[in-house]
């Protein structure tokens, strides 16, 4: 039976799944049977929900695990580069994409996946306390995204959440009429600085390179913003303070001092791919830990696909993540159409 043939039965199964416990939980050590899906998506960002939407359109029985529903895009204040929306907040875009996916019967589980392993032709995913909640899937789409890269200097850990931050949209309001710095020189760093400039009296952008490199439109905005000053060719070597941040140490003197007085530090030096789960099933990663994919979002492991910021694509935007998610869903659909996959193992012991 092909995926085309199974569309109607999958829809029926999805309805049954929605009205009954989807994940079999271990109770008193007993496993009633492990719920099975055509597609398991790991990740609740733009790429994950886009994949979920299209998998639903293909009639595939699909489950999505989201440790944080919405993903990284939630932290972007204003999005002006997503076709169809001249301006939309990250929160609203994430929610629109999510609701669109849910319209197609996607099963959404707000939990972190602890482990993925191959079981015969299928994959077993564990979540919940002690990994006791299990599902099986014929295909897996990794849309696990990224986490913030740390500055890795003395004081960063000590003051995290108390003067060192990674999200201006979340925590910028604490710095009304204060002096803050953004560490980094990317477009994201520039956008964070512009956001902070609405609250803070003074914002420094401290960048290790010769010149910050935002998109031209944001570069012009930074230049026009009177309370932003850019300090290039400079590394922050330590974050200093007692109960709160008081200053940072610089490796190159600024205005005659190797210390810059600050109330808060926002770190925006890029992201690290969250690819540990992919690694567990033998997926090949590049030197940056990103998942290698082809034009159908296939990885080197049959049945495993990847999309979004965790994939080894150069241009990481919401729109490219959405496209990769949809492509991954198509890849899974094609893969399931080409063969009959039976998850023979349906209990905890095999």
């Amino acid at each position, binding site marked *: 039976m092909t995926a085309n043939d199974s569309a109607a039965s999958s829809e029926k199964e999805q309805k049954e799944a929605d009205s009954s416990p989807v994940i079999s939980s271990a109770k008193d050590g007993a496993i009633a049977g492990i719920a099975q899906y055509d597609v398991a998506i790991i990740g609740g960002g733009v790429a994950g929900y886009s994949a979920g939407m299209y998998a639903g359109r293909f009639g595939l029985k699909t489950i999505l695990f989201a440790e944080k529903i919405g993903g990284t895009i939630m932290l972007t204040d204003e999005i002006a580069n997503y076709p169809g929306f001249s301006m939309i907040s990250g*929160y609203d875009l994430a929610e629109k994409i999510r609701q669109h996916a849910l319209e197609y019967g996607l099963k959404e589980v707000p*939990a972190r996946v602890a482990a993925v392993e191959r079981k015969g032709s299928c994959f077993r995913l564990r979540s919940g306390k002690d990994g006791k909640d299990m599902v099986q899937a014929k295909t897996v789409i990794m849309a696990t995204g990224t986490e913030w890269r740390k500055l890795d200097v003395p004081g960063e850990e000590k003051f995290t959440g108390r003067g060192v931050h990674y999200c201006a949209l*979340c925590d910028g309001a604490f710095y009304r009429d204060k002096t803050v710095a953004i560490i980094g020189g990317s477009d994201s760093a520039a956008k964070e600085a512009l956001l902070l400039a609405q609250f803070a009296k003074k914002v420094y952008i401290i960048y290790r390179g010769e010149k910050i490199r935002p998109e031209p439109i944001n570069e012009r905005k930074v230049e026009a913003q009177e309370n932003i000053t850019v300090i290039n060719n400079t590394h922050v070597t330590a974050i200093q303070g007692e109960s709160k941040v008081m200053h940072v140490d610089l490796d190159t003197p600024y205005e005659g001092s190797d210390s810059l007085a600050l109330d808060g530090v926002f770190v925006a030096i890029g992201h690290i791919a969250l690819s540990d789960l992919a690694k567990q099933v033998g997926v090949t990663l590049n030197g940056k830990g990103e998942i290698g994919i082809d034009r159908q979002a296939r990885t080197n492991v049959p049945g495993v696909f990847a999309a979004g910021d965790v994939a080894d694509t150069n241009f990481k935007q919401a729109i490219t993540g959405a496209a990769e998610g949809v492509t991954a869903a198509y890849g899974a659909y094609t893969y399931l159409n080409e063969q009959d996959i039976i998850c023979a193992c349906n209990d905890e012991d095999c």
Partner: protein
Amino acid sequence: MSVKVFSTQSCPWCHRVKDFLREHKVDFEDLDVGRDEKARNEMLEKSGQMGVPVLDINGTIIIGFDQEAITEALGL
């Protein structure tokens, strides 16, 4: 049950937390620490954090939108 949400107006995870509570029909007190200094000090005292969201669920302090922890604390 006493549920307090320490949040700012711009924080997206705060919106998500509050949507989650509303979806589950949980009454809560919403405190804007971006503007309310007293609430900010209360949050700092309870969590040691200057980042939001922070939840106080019957004395259990949860930092960030940790849905599993929130679900457990609320007994959902």
